[in-house]
């Protein structure tokens, strides 16, 4: 009824190629943006911003990165946490060692360094494929954990190997309150999402998808496999690096080698699987799901047991529920929440008719 495109005619190629070809989608996006930029800062509590929105947005960027690599280019990676770590440490070192570098330069530099690492890690991908590659990316994960835990140089010589991030200021305006952090992260979310959305609709995005569907066939029709795979690794790690830097600077406000372990990599992988592989919207849905679920489980567990049960048992039950829900979701909708959303939209367009 509301969601119907009748009467919307496309009279130019430009209109046909728009990100949101249906007007209702565009309005939906504008509403979301208004909510994010105006409503949330006005009404959301500090707890809401720090506890839910910041991690949600930062993990969304990380998930977009992994989705480009795994969902679009088809290269399964278990080392995403490593690139986030590289981003966080690079940002810290850039900020401290080059004091004149502006804040945006710090974050983009961190992303670029992570991208360079991604290219190195991705270089065997031409020869090693599938699960062999996935296990090979684990090498990056463990290597990065070892490097950042072993060499104090990366944290400016701090003996504890953990260090607080320096103060940030953007164009002379100090970023101190949670709201400032929120706006900074929101800016990055908007820019990276737009970038990713346009990348996957462009020539390079189509090359990624061709390689994902069948890399030998893609090579036959003239797509350079090495360039395509490495560019996917580079872009993916760039996003991961920015997400890692934001995580360290805006969320936990410290650089800590334990923050980016293997389970971070798995967590991001969960996000894109639950959200939907090969879908930018899916990254947000998946990140929301994975960020909110443990909190909900925790709250539910406390309410149901009334604090009678030992916290250890609650943690274990949370683990079981989390694992069980993941399996359940995969069984019910293996293509993720984004597919559910697409199905719902399709149904709406035809409503009240079934076909």
């Amino acid at each position, binding site marked *: 009824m509301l969601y119907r495109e009748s009467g919307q005619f496309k009279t130019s190629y430009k209109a046909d190629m728009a990100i949101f070809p249906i007007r209702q989608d565009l309005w939906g996006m504008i509403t979301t943006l208004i909510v994010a930029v105006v409503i949330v800062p006005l009404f959301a509590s500090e707890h809401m911003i720090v506890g839910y929105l910041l991690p949600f947005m930062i993990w969304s960027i990380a998930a977009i990165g992994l989705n480009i690599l*795994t969902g679009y280019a088809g290269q*399964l990676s278990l080392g995403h946490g490593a690139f986030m770590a590289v981003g966080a440490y690079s940002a810290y070192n850039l900020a401290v060692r080059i004091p004149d570098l502006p804040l945006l330069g710090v974050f983009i530099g961190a992303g670029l360094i992570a991208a360079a690492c991604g290219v190195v890690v991705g270089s*065997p991908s031409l*020869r*090693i*494929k*599938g*699960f*062999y590659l*996935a*296990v*090979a990316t*684990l*090498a990056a994960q*463990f*290597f990065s*954990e*070892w490097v950042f*835990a*072993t*060499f104090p140089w990366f944290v400016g010589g701090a003996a504890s190997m953990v260090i607080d991030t320096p103060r940030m200021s953007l164009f002379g305006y100090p970023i101190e309150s949670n709201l400032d952090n929120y706006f900074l992260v929101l800016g990055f979310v908007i820019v990276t999402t737009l970038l990713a959305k346009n990348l996957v609709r462009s020539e390079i995005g189509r090359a990624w998808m061709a390689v994902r569907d*069948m890399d*030998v*066939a893609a090579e*036959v029709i003239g797509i350079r496999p090495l360039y395509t795979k490495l560019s996917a690794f580079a872009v993916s790690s760039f996003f991961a690096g920015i997400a890692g830097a934001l995580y360290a600077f805006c969320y936990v406000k410290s650089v800590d080698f334990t923050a980016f372990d*293997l389970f971070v990599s*798995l967590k991001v*992988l*969960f996000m894109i*699987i639950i959200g939907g*592989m090969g879908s930018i919207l899916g990254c947000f849905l998946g990140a929301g799901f994975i960020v909110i679920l443990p909190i909900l489980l925790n709250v539910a567990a406390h309410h149901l047991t009334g604090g009678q049960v030992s916290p*250890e*048992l609650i*943690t*274990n*039950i*949370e*683990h*079981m*529920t*989390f*694992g*069980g*829900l*993941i*399996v359940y979701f*995969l*069984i019910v909708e*293996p293509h993720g929440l984004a597919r559910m959303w697409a199905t719902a939209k399709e149904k709406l367009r035809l409503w009240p008719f079934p076909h």
Partner: protein
Amino acid sequence: MPEELAWFLEVLIAGLLSGVMYSLVALGFVLIFKASGVFNFAQGAMVLFAALTFARFLEMGINFWFAAAITLFIMVVLAVIIERVMLRPLVAQPVIILFMATIGLNYFLEGLAQGVWDSQVHALDLGIEDVPWQSVMDATNILISLFDVWAAVICGALVVMLAYFFQKGRIGRALRAVADDNQAAMSVGIPLQLIWAIVWAAAGLVALVAGALWGQRLGVQFSISLVALKALPVLILGGFNSIAGAIIGGLIIGAAEKLAEVYIGPIIGGGIEAWFAYLVAMLFLMVRPQGLFGEKIIERV
């Protein structure tokens, strides 16, 4: 024997023997991958689950063999449940979905194991003492742990048993058929579901043995599930679908890791065992992308 050489041999043998322990864990992965093409990330959690169950039964004062039998029974039941609840609805889904499902299973089993039992460290005594092998020590001055030797013997016996199981009889033939091609096997009337349950049960048995051996060495606790990560380089080095590969891969990784720890570790700062095995495996992969004994990957358009 010169001192240097004796030391080298000692490290090498210790490495090879600890490699056998890695092989044992890798074997569980290989069994499941062969039969169903699933990369079972939950193998580590299965090891934890089996070891914890076994250790707690022993603590209750149950007879050793009886406890082992009950634990094995529980692992078989678990395998049937996994097949029924998780694998059957996911049949014919892309492998990455199945892989993610096993990660979910991993969380579930970790929670279950520690929720039903507890997350304390439990000592597990198999009745094998972790002492140097005296006669070898006297003869050659090389220190070999008797426990490692026993572990290797047990592992060898298990491999022979599994190889026999895979080669002989109706079930063995069906297992190989399923490993070769799921759908073709199904079309000639092999009960795929039953075979999968059997394979997961076999992986459960391997998990129990691995868990018991690792449990005596490290104590039964959460970190025992992380030995699965140690087994992954073994897996890609040997090839995902080769039992022989898991053994040889384990020996290579074990030896390389110990030698590197002793000879390279001090130079670059120690603690390199976390990633060195992966590096070795990757170097091998650059030459043979399907692992040492993996099936050759033939790509057609």
